[in-house]
């Protein structure tokens, strides 16, 4: 079945390839063909719901964090709190610290205005769960150097 599909796709060319793709790419129920305008509150509520689900696993946590990073915006404090609680349920502090780094990165060049506000909103959750911020760990500056593959 795989071989036939492969040769069929090659024969049909690029158009056939594109036709096949959406049918098997139905992940997370998002529609690729129609434009659905979602408000910020809806997006926030959706992601809070994702992170608050009781049986979240590493796969979905990674996927939702990567999608959230893909929206290329600073997540609302509610989403951040829900994500940190999800990391706690999964016993993964590395993901929590990485997520705080992501939030810092998404602030862009207005990090001095936005990040203190984020820390102010999310600070109680960080203290409650015992998650150090990247600054406290010294990770806001580079610590280790990685040799470039082109220099090896």
């Amino acid at each position: 079945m795989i071989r036939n599909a492969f040769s069929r796709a090659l024969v049909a060319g690029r158009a056939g390839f594109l036709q096949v793709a959406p049918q098997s790419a139905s992940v997370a129920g998002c529609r690729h063909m129609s434009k659905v305008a979602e408000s910020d509150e809806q997006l926030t509520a959706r992601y809070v719901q994702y992170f608050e689900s009781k049986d979240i696993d590493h796969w979905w946590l990674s996927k939702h964090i990567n999608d959230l990073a893909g929206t290329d915006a600073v997540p609302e404090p509610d989403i951040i709190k829900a994500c940190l609680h999800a990391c706690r349920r999964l016993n993964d502090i590395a993901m929590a610290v990485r997520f705080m780094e992501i939030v810092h990165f998404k602030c862009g060049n207005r990090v001095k205005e936005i990040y203190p506000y984020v820390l102010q909103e999310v600070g109680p959750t960080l203290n409650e769960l015992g998650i150090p911020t990247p600054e406290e760990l010294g990770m806001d500056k580079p610590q280790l150097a990685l040799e470039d593959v082109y220099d090896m």
Partner: protein
Amino acid sequence: MEMHIVSMATVTGTLLRRCSRLSAAAAPLSTSARALGGGGLPTVVERHGNRMVIGYGFNGEPNYIDRVDYPIPAVRFKEDNAQIKVLREKERGDWKKLTKEEVQELYRATFCRSFAEMQAPTGEWKLVLGGTMLACSIAVWIYLFMKVFVYEKLPDTITNPEKVEAQVQRMIDLRMNPVQGIASEWDYEKGQWKN
């Protein structure tokens, strides 16, 4: 430039996955024979070893890559050794009991570079600027070599001032370029250069 380990059949694997009618939940992360249940590509080495798969990653292959736009890669960076296992047990308890060094250990076990390290300046601009200036200086040296050893002397119609004067006089007599050029600089009534 990033440290990543890519499965051998990345492109073909993605092509095959799109063609086969597997649902998203059943789509495995690699195209090895073992993962696809007997069919699929033969003898693809599972290169991520014992490292725990934590997600889809950026292309569905179990690789590690530091990217600011896909911050959580598909696999952890390091395999679990005895030391890390101890820390993971401790991680199940209260996080306030973890020291900063232990948190860093756990972070480095999952991630290779922090965001600060990913975005740190490489200093490559110095290499590029230096290389460009070196190339320009070689070009200048080549020109000087040509001037000294290759080109002949300038002809005396240029070097001899009497001949140059005669040529300019001819240009004035012929009214060459009278609007903006040389004849426009000559005052024909007074018979001298305008100032």
